[in-house]
C-alpha cells in the first residue's frame, strides 16, 4: 500500500496555527474564569486571568493579521475562495459521507490535492470562523480593552454590555468550532494522521 504525500501546510501556516491554538486555548480558559468569577479563590486569580487574557488576546490579534496577510501574499488564500453553484449539494454529499458513507468504507467524495486542500464542510467552516467569527471576536475584544471607544448606550442598554455579549457569543461559537475541529482532525487515515500533517506539513493518504 503506497503512501501518497502532498506538501499542503507550509511552515508559516504551521507557525501561525500553533500560536493560534495555544493562545486560543488560554483565552478559553481565562475567559471562562472571568465569566464565572466568584468571591472565593477559584482556579486562577482574577487579576492574573485579566492580564493573561489581555496578553493572549493581543498575541492572537497580531497572529490573525499574520494569517490574513499571509493568505493574501502566499496564495494559500485560494483554498478559501471559489464557491460553485452546487455548493449545497457538495456540503450534503460531504455530510452524508460522515454520517454513513465512511462506515460503509466508501472513499472520500472530495479528494485532497494541491488544488483542493479542504473538503466543502471544512472550507465553509474555516471561512466562517476565520473571516466572520475571528474579526468579530477581535473587534469586540478590543472594544472591551479600550472601553472609551464604545458607544455609551443603545436603547437604554449599555454599549459595553452589548459588546460583551457579542464577544461571549463569538467565544462560544468558536469553542464549539474547536471541539468539532479537533474531532474532525481525528478523521484522517489514522486518528493521529492529520495532527502529524500540521506538524511536518505533509498530508498523507493511502492510495
Amino acid at each position, binding site marked *: 500500500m503506497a503512501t501518497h504525500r502532498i506538501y499542503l501546510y507550509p511552515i508559516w501556516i504551521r507557525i501561525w496555527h500553533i500560536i493560534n491554538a495555544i493562545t486560543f486555548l488560554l483565552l478559553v480558559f481565562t475567559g471562562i474564569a*472571568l*465569566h*464565572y*468569577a*466568584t*468571591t*472565593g479563590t477559584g482556579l486562577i486569580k*482574577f*487579576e492574573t486571568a*485579566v*492580564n493573561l487574557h489581555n496578553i493572549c488576546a493581543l498575541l492572537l490579534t497580531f497572529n490573525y493579521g499574520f494569517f490574513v496577510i499571509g493568505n493574501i501574499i502566499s496564495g494559500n488564500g485560494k483554498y478559501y475562495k471559489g464557491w460553485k453553484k452546487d455548493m449545497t449539494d457538495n456540503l450534503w454529499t460531504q455530510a452524508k459521507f*460522515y454520517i454513513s458513507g*465512511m*462506515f460503509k468504507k466508501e472513499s472520500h467524495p472530495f479528494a485532497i490535492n494541491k488544488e483542493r486542500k479542504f473538503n466543502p464542510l471544512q472550507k465553509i467552516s474555516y471561512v466562517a470562523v476565520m473571516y466572520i467569527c475571528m474579526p468579530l471576536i477581535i473587534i469586540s475584544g478590543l472594544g472591551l480593552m479600550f*472601553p*472609551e471607544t464604545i458607544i455609551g*448606550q443603545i436603547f*437604554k*442598554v*449599555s454599549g*459595553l*454590555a452589548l459588546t*460583551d455579549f457579542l464577544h*461571549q457569543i463569538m467565544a*462560544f461559537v468558536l*469553542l*464549539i468550532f474547536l*471541539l*468539532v475541529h479537533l*474531532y474532525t482532525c481525528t478523521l484522517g487515515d489514522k486518528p493521529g494522521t492529520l495532527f502529524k500533517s500540521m506538524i511536518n506539513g505533509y498530508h498523507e493518504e493511502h492510495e
Partner: protein
Amino acid sequence: MTKPIRFFLILLLAATSTLIAQSDDSLKIKSSYFEVNDFVEDNEACLKCHGEEKYLIEDPNSGRSITNHMCPDRTIDRDAFYSSVHKAFSCTDCHSYDFMTFPHPLEVRFEEHFMCLDCHGYDESFAQYHFEDIEMEFQKSIHNMEDFSCWKCHDPHSYKAFMRNAEDLTEAILYDNNMCLKCHANFSRFTLLTDREEINVVKSHEWLPNQTAHFKSVRCIECHTAISDSILIPHQIMPKADAVKRCTECHSRDSRLMHTLYKFQSKEERKGGFVNGVIMTDYFVIGANKSPFLDKLSFLILAGTLLGIAFHTFLRIRNKKTK
C-alpha cells in the same frame, strides 16, 4: 475732533458702560433665586464680597477705596448655593450677624457651627436619611479626628443630595468622588488637618488596572467603607488596610456593588432576566452580569456537541470491530 462731538462720544460711552454694568448685575442675581429663597437681597450683603472674585474695601473716613482679591476658599458660587439642599437659608441663619461688619471681628471667627444633627437629628421628616445612623458610622470612621466634621465633605454652600436623585449615575459618581478629592487631591486642604505626608491617590491605586475607567464608574466609598444595609450612603471609612482590593468583590455574581452603588435600583426586579440587570443600563461589570438563560442554552449546545462526537466515535469503533 470738534468739542461737541467729543462731548457726545463721551456721553455715549458713559451710557453704554452703565448699561453693561446693569445687565451684569441682573445676570448675577437670577430670578430663580427668589423662587427658592426669601433672603436673596440680605444675602447680597455678604455675597457682594463672597460671591465675587474681587471685593472693594472702603475707608469711610478718608473716602479712599481699594480692590482686593477674594481668596477662592472663601468664595461662594451663587448658582451652587441656591440649588443646594439649604438653598432657602440666609447666610446669617448659620453665621453670626457680626459678620456684617468688615473686617470681621476676631471673636466671630471662633463661632460654633451647627452640626447636621442639631437640625436634622430625631426629626421624622428627615427619617429617610437616617442621620443618626450616619453620625454613628462617622464616629467610627478614620476621619473622626479633631476639626473634622460633616461639613468637611458636605460643603455648606453647595451640598446636594446627588446620588438619591441621580438621573445619571456617572455624574453622581463624579460628584461623590470630588468630595473626597477635595482633600485627597489637594494637599493644602489635607495638611490643614494632619501632619501626615502627602498621599498620592493615583500612586496608591496603581494596582488597579484601568484606573481612570474605574474611578469613573465606581465611587471611592465603594472600596473604603463597610457595607451598611440601613443607609443609602455608607459613611464608615475604614483604615486603608481594610479597603477592598479583591477584584471579585465587584466582578462576581454577588457583587458588592449591588449593596452600595446600585443599592436603590437593585430593589427593582431583574431586568430582562439578567442577573444584576440594573448594572446593564449604565455599566457592565465583568463577572457580575450574566444571563442564566444564555448560560443554560450554551450548556445544552455544548452537551449536544459532545454527545454527537461521542456517538460518532462509538460508531467508528464498532465499525472497526465488525470489519
